[in-house]
């Protein structure tokens, strides 16, 4: 077939559906509209990766806790995704609301509605007021407060106004209007109790819904175009995890990961079909200017044919060239990297003298036996990769713990669920960790780990954490003895843990939920607002009790 690109003619794509929306540029060619939400919500492949928690890389729904929750809820609808991303907020889970929601989700018998009418408003969340909007709905539709007052109640309950005198006014109004709706006293009391216990933790539904749309969009991309998607995640410097985690995810998804190459790599990561090629941007200490020089010159005058050719054409420092050689960006020359290092030395030397052609020189040098310099050892290659990219490409770091991981007593992540409730030994590599404070104020930690077969969560409850806290400050391999959680076959409840490598946690521990306890969105409430809303509600009270009341 004729290659139209040669003639600079773009082929018209008749099959494409062009939908002009506000983002018209996106829809020109591909055969899907990423803003067609109904299509996204019904897409089987997308639903499947959400349901299975295979959402690493997907905005808002990629944390270990979220992925496990998605699995637990068998979540694959938009509504459920909105609910899931709300109940997993820090602090909310600890409040017991999440557990209540999961229980009711799994067992319809447990779905309770204080007043039958409530099912109409809270059916989506099985009677649990998970959203701030739910609190407003119940206070308004069931108890008869005005919408303004209902919002005020919600805000007041989540903030420090909770015990104030003005709050009493709101309380009295609530009972008054609820009575007007002919609700029995004990029901009103219980309704108030439920609202006060949920209000503080409820989350803004609109916010979650807006974000969940984006989650669905990126999940669709991951499901259908994993290579392009993960390349983009890496180019945008990831999300929740470090680049290493996404590189390993590529491999788990069966993608071939290619090292940077001066002849193939773009600046950004690039993915297509079954491969992902690391962009030049991954090479730390390579300046942006040099990257542009490499790709710009290549686009203008074609591929580089030899190291000499490269050095001749690209404005680059010797140090940077060595960096590229060491990490494999010249492997296409089919010379060992140490040989290329030598060659580089001569190339730069002759570049500065310009006495004779670089090409002759290179061929001459190669014919003099440089070809025979052996390649670096595997360990050295890995060390260079780690130093250059911050992650390993040709191997998984756990490969260096072969003695341990292949031991027959060590259980692999993919086999964990066969050991429900049993004590097992595992080896895992650090992905991320999360410290939280329990309701009793004790600190515990979730360590997200991976082995060559998959990912898993190591849970350190406070009593165990207090013994091993300092052991978990490292960020490498861990050996674990623990019991597989009967409730969640992907969790191991740690009994003993040991750091197997001395690699220290690179990132500064920053804010985490152990310090920042989440009490829902705390909005400011002022006394005058109570007065305002009181006056607004007069109409309702009048309509309920008539003018004489």
């Amino acid at each position, binding site marked *: 077939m004729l*290659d*139209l690109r040669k003639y600079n003619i*773009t082929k018209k*794509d008749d099959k494409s559906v062009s939908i002009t929306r*506000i983002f*018209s*540029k*996106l829809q020109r*060619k*591909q*055969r899907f509209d*990423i803003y067609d*939400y109904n299509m996204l919500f019904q897409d089987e492949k997308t639903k499947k990766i959400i349901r299975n928690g295979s959402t690493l890389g997907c*905005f*808002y729904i990629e944390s270990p806790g979220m992925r496990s929750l998605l699995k637990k809820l068998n979540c694959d609808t938009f509504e459920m995704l909105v609910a899931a991303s709300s109940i997993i907020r820090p602090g909310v889970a600890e409040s017991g609301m999440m557990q209540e929601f999961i229980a009711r989700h799994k067992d319809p018998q447990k779905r309770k509605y204080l007043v039958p009418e409530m099912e109409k408003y809270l059916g989506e969340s099985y009677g649990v007021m998970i959203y701030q*909007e739910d609190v*407003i709905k119940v206070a308004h539709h069931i108890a008869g407060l005005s*919408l*303004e007052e209902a*919002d*005020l109640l919600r805000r007041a309950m989540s903030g420090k106004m909770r015990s104030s005198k003005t709050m009493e006014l709101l309380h009295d109004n609530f009972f008054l209007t609820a009575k007007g709706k002919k609700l029995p006293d004990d029901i009103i009391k219980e309704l108030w109790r439920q609202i006060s216990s949920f209000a503080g933790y409820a989350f*803004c*539904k*609109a916010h979650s*819904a*807006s*974000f969940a*749309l*984006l989650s669905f*969009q*990126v999940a669709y*991309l991951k499901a259908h*175009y994993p290579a*392009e998607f993960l390349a*983009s995640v890496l180019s*945008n*410097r*990831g*999300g929740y995890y470090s680049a290493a985690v996404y590189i390993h995810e590529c491999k788990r998804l069966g993608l071939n990961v290619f090292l940077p190459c001066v002849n193939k790599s773009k600046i950004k990561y690039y993915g*297509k079909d079954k491969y992902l090629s690391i962009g030049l941007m991954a090479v730390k200490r390579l300046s942006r200017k040099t990257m542009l020089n490499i790709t710009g010159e290549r686009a203008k005058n074609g591929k580089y044919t030899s190291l000499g050719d490269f050095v001749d054409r690209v404005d680059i420092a010797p140090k940077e060239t060595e960096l590229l050689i060491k990490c494999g960006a010249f492997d296409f020359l089919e010379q060992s990297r140490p040989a290329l290092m030598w060659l580089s030395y001569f190339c730069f030397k002759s570049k500065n003298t310009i006495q004779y052609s670089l090409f002759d020189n290179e061929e001459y040098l190669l014919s003099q036996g440089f070809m025979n310099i052996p390649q670096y050892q595997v360990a050295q290659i890995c060390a260079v990769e780690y130093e250059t990219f911050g992650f390993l490409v040709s191997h998984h770091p756990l490969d260096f713990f072969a003695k341990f991981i292949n031991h027959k007593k060590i259980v692999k992540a993919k086999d964990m669920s066969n050991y429900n409730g049993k004590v097992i030994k595992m080896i895992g590599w650090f992905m991320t960790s999360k410290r939280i404070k329990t309701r009793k104020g004790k*600190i515990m930690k979730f360590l997200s780990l991976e082995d060559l077969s998959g990912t898993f969560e190591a849970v350190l409850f*406070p009593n165990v*954490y*207090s*013994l091993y*806290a*300092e052991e*978990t*400050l490292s960020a490498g391999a861990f050996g674990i003895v623990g019991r597989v959680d009967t409730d969640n076959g992907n969790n191991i409840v740690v009994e003993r843990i040991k750091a197997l490598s001395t690699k*220290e*946690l690179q990132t500064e*521990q*920053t*804010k*985490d939920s152990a*310090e920042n306890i989440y009490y829902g969105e705390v909005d400011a409430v*002022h006394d005058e*607002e109570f007065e*305002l809303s009181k006056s*607004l509600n007069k109409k309702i009270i009048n309509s309920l009790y008539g003018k004489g009341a």
Partner: protein
Amino acid sequence: MISLHVHSNYSLLQGTIRVEDLVDYAEKEGSSFVALTDTNVMYGLIKLAKLAVAKKIKPILGVLIDDPNNIDEHCIFLAKNNKGYSQICRFITDRNIREDFSISELFLEDLENMFLITSSLELLKKIEYTPIVKKNLFVELFVTKKWKPKVRQLYEFAREQNLEIVATHPAYFYKAEDYELHKVVSAIKKNTTLAKLEDTDIVDPEFYLRTPEEFGKLWKSLPEVISNAERIVKECNVDLELGKYKFPHFPLPNTESDAFNYLSRICGTELRKKYTVLTTQIRERLEYELRVIDQQGFTDYFLVVWEIIKEAHKRNALTVGRGSAANSLVAYCLNFHQVDPIAHNLYFERFLNMARTSPPDIDIDFSWAERDDIVKYVFQRFGYDRVAMISTMITFRARSAFREVAKIFGLSETKISQYRKHIPWTSAKNLPTIYEHFPESKSLKYDFTTEPLKSIVEIASRLSEFPRHISIHPGGIVIAPSLITNFTALEYAANKGIGIIVTQPDMYSIEDIGLVKIDLLSQRSLGVLRDSIDMITQNVSETESI
């Protein structure tokens, strides 16, 4: 009588008085006023005003401005009224942003609306004595052992030149013993150790808050300086109208005469695009929302955000709305977000209602590559003189306080980072007993209870929540109804490269003064969406042309 010359810890790494403590101090001493005059900044002014007004104490808002080329030339400016306050904001902005700034040129400005107080003889000998300067200028007198000779000179100069005199007392720390803390922060500022700290790096040990009794005793023989101070206090009456919104004005196109009509029409048109079947319920809801928005005074604000989003989409930027705005049908029509509030049964009242006194939060996420472009547009569209990014104040936390204090005690970086590893993200207050609070800090017990670390963590804990340096808020941008410097001073956000100008007060103060912020945040996942789609488009077209 308390001092009119006070530096809080917002005189970064120099003052050590917390604004809260300063106001409490004024209350305790039964003072009718409290003054704040930080060096070249107004970080704390709005906060001071808010706290003081709540206690029915009059806030005296001012600043000490020094000359960038000679810090011995300095002058305190106190605002007599709102106009004076605005002018002070502009002076501070000039001091921080203009390269050719020199303090003496401020004396050529219209100084009718402020008092000038200075103890700089060099400056006094340099400035031009216009009638207004003569009227509002006071030579600053205070008594400490160290300053005695200099103050005498000042007094004589004032008498010779027939200038007014006033008693103050420069305060940089609360109590005399807090001098130690002043030395600590000064060493941090100087990036040196306590042992190497020189006298010129620190202020007079007597620069603590003097009590009214002390003032009375010291100036018994010269009552004029006290009565002048009292006159200044009486004539300083700034009302920042805290809590009252100062909305931006939307510049209507020539064809429009009414903002509300314009907004309604835009929403109506968009509504027909969004819904194929327009029920009465939908129509009524839109009308109701528009009414509430208008009654609360947000119409112009919505038009402003609409125009920003419209421009972003015109430039093919991707956006996603965050926060409660997705509860609003109007916000949906204006494309602030993509959630259909009718289909998802969302409540407008959660976003905005007649009983709410706080402004609605409209936060829009952009892909990080596209956001800067939009921020630039906002500056161009609404005027560089009316727009600013909001700052955020970085404060000392356990790790940073520990590191800085350990450094000035001469501990090595290696040693420091060994300890720091065991300090989690927490308040610096917890440092002395941190091994009790956190399991990962257990091994610190011995060292932290033994010298020199015992003192180090003790001192570090006293720096808890102290402002450290200003940074840029991740997305907050503010558009003022008139010159932005009428409301707040500006400075360069030093840590983000040259060019970004931010408000000196942080978002809380900005909110208190009534400026409404819009959050334009950067969101990596939108970048992922953009890059993926681009790559897929390219790959698909390549495959198909083979």
